[in-house]
């Protein structure tokens, strides 16, 4: 038993050492712009942009294959900051308030399917209890909508709260 333990431990240590050495020797300088874009993106890899995770999206953005508005969860705020980081101008069309998941409590059967899908753990509620969406954590990726068997989960425009209510834009008289 001692031999087995010692052998496996030393094997593990050997490979660990080898890998950490390899990580130093074969280090590839990472693109500074990519790091910057990655820091801006939500980082939950929901895949709604059509790229494999936020890393893929960052590569596409840098290569100019994607537009700054590609990230639905990030909403308009992220689109603006991405455009600034990439030195591009954003089309002035505002997309309105971000869409967030909302549960119609009357139809929720507490199946707990939605909570398993949520990349940000924004859905609260134990199995067989009525669930609820924690709006501060929800980023509107919509993964939960597809699994809801009773269609009580819908994406709805965020209801304004004190934290992000804005004055309405000035409008022309009589327009």
């Amino acid at each position: 038993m001692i031999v087995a333990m010692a052998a496996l431990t030393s094997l593990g240590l050997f490979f660990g050492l080898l890998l950490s050495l390899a990580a130093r020797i074969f280090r590839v300088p990472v693109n500074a712009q990519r790091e910057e874009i990655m820091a801006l993106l939500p980082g939950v890899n929901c895949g709604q942009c059509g790229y494999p995770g936020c890393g893929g999206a960052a590569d596409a953005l840098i290569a100019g294959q994607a537009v700054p508005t590609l990230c639905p969860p990030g909403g308009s705020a992220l689109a603006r900051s991405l455009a600034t980081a990439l030195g591009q101008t954003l089309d002035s069309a505002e997309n309105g308030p971000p869409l967030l998941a909302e549960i119609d409590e009357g139809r929720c059967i507490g199946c707990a399917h939605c909570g398993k899908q949520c990349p940000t753990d924004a859905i609260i509620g134990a199995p067989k209890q009525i669930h609820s969406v924690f709006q501060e954590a929800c980023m509107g990726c919509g993964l939960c909508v597809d699994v809801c068997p009773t269609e009580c989960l819908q994406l709805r425009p965020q209801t304004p709260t004190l934290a992000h209510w804005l004055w309405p834009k000035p409008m022309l008289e009589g327009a």
Partner: protein
Amino acid sequence: MRDYLLILLGAALVNNAVLVRFLGLCPFMGVSNRVDAALGMGMATTFVLTLAVAVSWLLEHYVLAPLNIQFLRILAFILVIAALVQFTEMFIRKASPALYQTLGIYLPLITTNCAVFGIALLNIQQQYDFISSLLYGLGSAMGFTLVMALFAGIRERLALANVPAAFAGAPIAFIVAGLLALAFMGFVGLPVR
């Protein structure tokens, strides 16, 4: 020379990892939607499998057997293969960014590929010498790549075919996989082990 050729052929066709031994079925179903993806996975597996068989052979004959701890084979091989895949990924990333772009996403997947592990274990059972082991690994991996490419080609056509609603999607893919396995049973007639 003839022996080596027979080992290669036997591993690739007669004892095909996917269709005869039923190893590595997850990439077989999962990464076979497009031919280029299937070829990428096949190439990455070929690379890792050959290396894994070589390293596991060395480990078996120079560490496990002298210490008389062959019962730790499974654990030790898992460790080796996982470390090897990591190392390969780092090395390729540095040495050839183009190859990394092609194989990059598939390499981590191979860590958990049972074909790699299974072939490394079977290779020890066959009691081959080092060169034969290398050829056995290479042959198995080539067989894997061949089957991946074949199956992906068929699935690309299936996607356009008019399949009955009850069979559309995964069911027809499984039926096709079964037929392919039947077809590969024909290679049993070859005069190799």
